[in-house]
């Protein structure tokens, strides 16, 4: 495979997307009006595909903290903490996460992607074994690949399948790292974490949970699905991102093992990357304070999720999972999905179009992510747009488009 061939392959992907008018790179938000609205193609558009679960990206307290940090600490850190030293704000945010989870160790990373890459490349090496859920995010697969460890998948959300595969590993099961997510971002389904954790512990394996989409959304204090199902004292590593509920950019890992902090000395994605900008750290820090102080945001998010789930169900849409802040409407084929996605845009609604292999189980999805920032009126307008698109598709096509 040459570089020229690679360019040709990527151009083919672009052309395929363009042929069905589904190239996501054409979506430019010309003006950001609020956490839930932007101008796209000249039209004010309701955003239902941002993962801005708590709607905090324009929260005055967070904006003030980020602006103050830029003034006080500058626009960037200009390097790695292991080379340049740590800003006090990064160290303090790690203490805040450790205190929030009541765990001895926490580390922050520069992005959510790098958090999982950094944890995996720091923890496991060639000769080690990892078992991860088949629907895991690309950064978990990439982290496994880059680590050099032997990695295999278990069937999605299937504790018995995990047990079978751990048994197959024999003596190696004992030190195997098992990975699941809290809320799966494409289908919007949650993992049976207590059951998966119990199986992992039965074999003496380590258990890691990525709470990227569930942090701030599940659990009494918003600490994620591990908190909700009561396994915070058993799970070995929890990762999360700043770029969803925390309305910033970066990521964190917490652990009940004090030794996790040692990864600073051996995690290449931590050592060889500039640390997050002061503004990002200050925004995440302020958002964490907001999450702790305002549990009503979570309540609002769930009310919005229920409203959209009810509305789309009443229209007859095939929704992939029970109610959660990710509501994925199944579409029979990528072409039908692209038509519906464009029609929704023309009706002033932006959702995520997801096609295989990013959409699991061969489906194409019109993926909606809810926000506490959505008003009931916005949700109703989204439902009305889906109704409009369904009726147009029903009139023009032999099969319903969604």
């Amino acid at each position: 495979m040459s570089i020229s061939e690679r360019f040709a392959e990527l151009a083919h992907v672009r052309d395929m997307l363009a042929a069905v008018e589904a190239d996501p790179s054409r979506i430019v938000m010309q003006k950001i009006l609020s956490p839930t609205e932007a101008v796209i193609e000249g039209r004010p558009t309701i955003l239902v595909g941002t993962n801005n679960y708590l709607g905090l990206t324009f929260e005055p307290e967070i904006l003030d903290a980020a602006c103050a940090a830029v003034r006080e600490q500058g626009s960037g850190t200009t390097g790695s903490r292991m080379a340049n030293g740590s800003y006090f704000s990064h160290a303090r945010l790690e203490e805040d996460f450790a205190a929030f989870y009541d765990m001895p160790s926490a580390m922050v990373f520069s992005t959510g992607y790098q958090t999982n890459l950094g944890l995996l490349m720091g923890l496991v090496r060639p000769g080690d074994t990892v078992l991860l859920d088949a629907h895991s995010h690309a950064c978990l697969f990439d982290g496994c690949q880059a680590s050099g460890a032997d990695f295999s998948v278990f069937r999605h959300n299937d504790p018995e399948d995990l047990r079978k595969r751990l048994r197959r590993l024999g003596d190696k099961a004992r030190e195997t790292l098992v990975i699941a997510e809290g809320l799966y971002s494409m289908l919007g389904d949650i993992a049976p974490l207590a059951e998966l954790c119990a199986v992992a512990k039965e074999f003496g394996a380590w258990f890691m949970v990525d709470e990227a989409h569930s942090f701030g959304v599940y659990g009494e204090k918003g600490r994620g699905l591990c908190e909700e199902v009561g396994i915070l004292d058993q799970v070995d590593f929890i990762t999360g991102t700043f770029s969803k509920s925390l309305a910033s950019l970066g990521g964190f890992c917490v652990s009940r093992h004090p030794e996790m902090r040692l990864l600073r000395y051996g995690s290449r994605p931590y050592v060889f990357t500039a640390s997050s900008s002061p503004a990002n750290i200050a925004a995440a820090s302020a958002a964490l304070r907001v999450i702790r102080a305002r549990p009503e945001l979570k309540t609002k998010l769930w009310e919005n999720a229920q409203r959209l789930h009810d509305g789309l169900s009443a229209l007859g849409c095939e929704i992939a999972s029970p109610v959660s802040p990710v509501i994925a409407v199944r579409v029979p084929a990528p072409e039908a999905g692209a038509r519906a996605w464009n029609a929704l845009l023309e009706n002033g609604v932006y959702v995520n179009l997801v096609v295989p292999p990013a959409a699991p189980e061969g489906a194409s999805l019109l993926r909606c992510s809810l926000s506490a920032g959505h008003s009931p009126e916005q949700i109703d307008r989204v439902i009305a747009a889906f109704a409009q698109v369904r009726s147009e598709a029903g009139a023009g096509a032999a099969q319903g488009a969604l």
Partner: protein
Amino acid sequence: MSHDANNLEDEITAMLLERLARFSTRATGLHPQADLARDLNLDSVNMMELLMELEDHYDVSIPLNTMADVSTIADLADRVRKVVETRS
């Protein structure tokens, strides 16, 4: 390869040809030298599913990271045979 190894590889190849029939087209056909990605258009999820089925059928573990240089049905059959033989 020994006679037994040949038999095992033939058996795995036959199973792969059966399971991959739905990916074949008139243009590419289905044969041991067919490229899984280029000819049959298997994506990463299809490949994972196929590996899980093979793992279950032979009761072995076949790590995904050992698939980097597997391109064709014949490559995959050879890789699976070696894993199964190691277990035996």
